[in-house]
Each structure stands twice: as C-alpha cells, then as structure tokens.
C-alpha cells in the first residue's frame, strides 16, 4: 500500500531545511505511520536529495509526524540550482512510499 492511501502531506522550507508533514486521514492509521515511517527510512528514501540528518517529531494529538530534513534544498532556497528551489513538491514523493501492512 502507498502512504498516499492513508495520509496527506505538506512541505515547507527554511533556508536549507525542508520540513515534510505526514498526517493520517484517520486517527487509527497514525500508529502504523509512527511504527513504519522512521527518520532513517525517510533519509534513505530521499538519499539523492537530502544530504543531512532527518529528525522526526510526533504530534500524537492530531495524528501527524513532522520530518525535518537538513541540507536538502541545494544550499538554500535562494542559491539552489533546482527548479523547485523550495522543495515544495517533496511531500508528494513521500506519499508514493510503499508500506507493508500485515
């Protein structure tokens, strides 16, 4: 199953750091996100794009994770050579991630 079936996402930027939220549509799916989508998994998934550490923050009350990806925006929003300098499209890539459900 793709993450997109159970979660939605929005991406923000600050300098060279991208933050990608992963929000469960249904509260009951949050535990699965929390169990499966670790910071290491996200770092590996974006290995071609994210050159720094990934920190995961948990928002249990609303059933959401916030991934903060350091060194991801090509040296910073102003000087990045990428077309999408803000990395605004990254969240949609995260939602393509396959997860195994028992």
């Amino acid at each position, binding site marked *: 199953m793709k993450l997109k079936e159970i979660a939605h996402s929005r991406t923000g930027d600050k300098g060279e750091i991208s933050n990608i939220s992963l929000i469960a549509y249904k509260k009951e799916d949050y535990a699965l996100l929390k169990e499966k989508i670790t910071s290491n998994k996200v770092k590996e998934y974006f290995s071609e794009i994210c050159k720094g550490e990934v920190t995961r*923050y948990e928002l249990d009350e609303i059933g*959401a994770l916030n991934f*903060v990806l350091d060194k991801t925006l090509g*040296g910073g929003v102003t*000087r990045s*050579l990428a077309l999408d300098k803000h990395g605004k499209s990254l969240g949609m890539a995260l939602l393509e991630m396959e997860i195994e459900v028992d």
Partner: protein
Amino acid sequence: MRTIRIGSGAGYAGDRIEPAVELMEKGNLNYIIFECLAERTIALGQKEKLKDATKGYNSFLEYRMNHILPLLKDNNIKVITNMGAANVKAAADKTLEIANQLGVKGIKIAYVTGDDISDNLDFYADYKVLETGYQLKEMKANIMSANAYMGCEGITEALKNGADVVITGRVSDPALVIGALVYEFGWDADKDADKMGQAVLAGHLLECAGQVTGGYYADPGYKEVPNLDRLGYPLVEIDASGAFVLSKVEGSGGIITTDTCKEQMIYEIHNPKAYLTPDAIADFSKVKFTQEGNDRVRVENATSHGKPKELKVSIGYEDCYIGEGEISYGGANCLSRARLAEDVVRKRLNLIGAKLEEYRCDYIGYNSLYRDKLSTLPNGETNSEIRLRISGRTKDEWNAAQIANEVEALYTNGPAGGGGVVKRVEQIVSVCSIFVARKDVTATVHYLEVE
C-alpha cells in the same frame, strides 16, 4: 465574552486583492493583516531604496491601499501589514498620499521602525553566521541589509495610540496578529503562557492566507476543494480565553477542515514543542482541532514557554550568479539526444575554462512539443519529449553567461532537432542570519494623520 475578528488579506508579497476586499466587506472584521515579506524581500528593497529614496517598500502597496483605504471607516477595520519592507517611512508617506487622493478622512497611519540594524553591524563583527559558520566580518563587503525579526510591541503601541493603519518592516509574521491580540486582551508571554501560545498559532494559521482555506491542498481524487478559483481567505474569531474558531466568508471558495488546519499548523515549523517567535516560544504539540460546522474549525490547547532571549537578524547579501539554459528534444531517442547535448555543454564549459561552483542538469517533459495526439509515440513510448535544463552557480556574471550561451549554441552545434531555447543569467541575493540580544533592538512608532 467579547470576540475579536481578524482576517488575513495576503499570504505573500504579490497575493490577490479580491479575497481581502471580500473579507473586509463581508467578514465583519475588527482587523485585517497583510503578510507580504519573504526572507529576501528586504535585501531587494534595500537595493531599490539606494536607487530611489522613495522606494523599497512592497511593490503592491499602492494597488492594495487603493482598494483597502476606502473600506476602513465604513467597516470599522484596522489594517496591520509588513508592506513597509526596506522603507517603512516611504510606505507610510505613500499611504497618506493615497488616502488624500481618495478623499479618505480621519485615519491615523502608524509606522514602526527599529528592525533595520545595518548601521550597527560592526558591533557584531565577530558573531558567527548561522548558515555559513563564517564570522560576520568576513562577509562585510557583500552585505546589503540587516533586519531583526521584531515582535509585536510596536504594533501594540501603535494600536494603543489609535492607529487605523500600522505599517512595519521586518517583524515575525505572526506578530501582525499577536500585536492586535495583545492590544485587545493585554496578554503577556510570562503570565499568559497558554493565551500567547494560542496567539502565535492564530498568527501562524493566518499568515499564509489561502493556505489554510484550501490553497496548496487540493489533490483530485484525494482531497477535493470546491471553487478553488474563488478561494476565500481566512479569519479567526477569538476571545479573551484564547480559544478561537477559524472560518471564512460564507459563499467564498475553498474549504476549512481539521485537515487543512493540520497541514498549515505543521507548515514551516520544526519542533512543534518549540516554535520560536520573538513574542513567545510556542508549543503546538497538544493542539486540538474540532470541526464545528461547515468551514468552521475550533482551535485550542496551544501553549508557550516564555520569550526567547535573543532575536534573529536576517542579513541579505550579494551571494553569487546563476546561469541557466533550457532546450527541448522530441521524438524517439529524444533522451539520448538530450544526454548527448548535456555531454557537449559540460565538455564545452570545461574547454573554454568556465569556472563553476556547482553544476546541475535536469531532464523535463510531457506534451509541450507535439500536443497530445503525437505525444504518445507509435511504439507506445510516452516520453516523446525531453527538455534539457542546465544550470550552474558561479562567482561572477561572465562565467554564468557561458552556461546560458553554451546551451543556446546547441541550436546549430548540438544534436539534431533541438528547439525552444531559453536562457537566463541572474545575480543571486541570499539571506543568512545571526542572533542578537533582545535589548539591542527597539521598536519606535511614528504617526501620520489624515485630517
């Protein structure tokens, strides 16, 4: 309990005006904020100001004020905006001029200065720059601007003194909302931790305008948004308890759900327990959203952990140049020709001795060359076109121009059938930051009156 209604009329420098007008006419507002200052805007404004001392504020200020000012008195609304950018005084002077032209009478315009600390930079010469790790003095020759992110104190003072329009330069985005709330309810970060947390959250949810009412949200088949072209902008209804409801004008486009609110709350924050703003270190970790009705979400349980001891200063500097060029290849084998083209450009840049700090190439494409019918090749291949984009960062303009020119030269010197070249060379202004003691920055409020 008295309820204050604050609307958001802009989420970025060039945002639309109709949703703001709709809010002012139909939103029964007490305040409307216009957040118009991206990170680099002040540095670019500073450059304009150097050329023309009456410029350097938001380029949409005249356009917006012409629409806003006639609506203030009839609807009893106060305006709070950071459209002053690098020249707050000139923005206020221009606003006064427009009010006079329109015959709008009896309004008080306040402008807040103090964020521009560029004259004091020698004092911080040894400070370490957050992004680069260099000492500030090593960058001195390239610095264009230095502005502290101020809190809400100037805005609150202006409102206490009866201002109808408050224009600032660099303040934190949520401060535009917090300033009104502190004026109305007298909240204090040290005594009212929960209420100030809610105030920061209200500001944070409003500051990007349409992004909480269904903008930046729609995904056909997954997340539907009605009438996205008529997107309404948000307002909060907040009382002295700090709890608030987020809503929009009835009949406007867009959607407000707990999901749009969740996406926007996490947008551009890192640690949800410590969202740093000059007015309070907010904690959104326990926030609760409740759908109260159609396009109405109740927001509660934010808190805060005091004020930060330091303020962030955003420093604009002339950083580098970027040169880029694009060219399209179509038909079978287009990717191979695009790759050959890239290989040629890379070797040419090497051959002519162009000096690049960084190099990148992208392969883009869907149906721009052959429209739809011919964009699926008879062999079933859907990649019927590739747009090659080559870009590079350089220290000077000449080297950046070589990248753009070598892509253009592919027309006659590259693989077969290349078309649609565009090229661009741009000087890049970047921003970096230092942190300074709070006491080093003082807001001063000035007033202009339209009799």
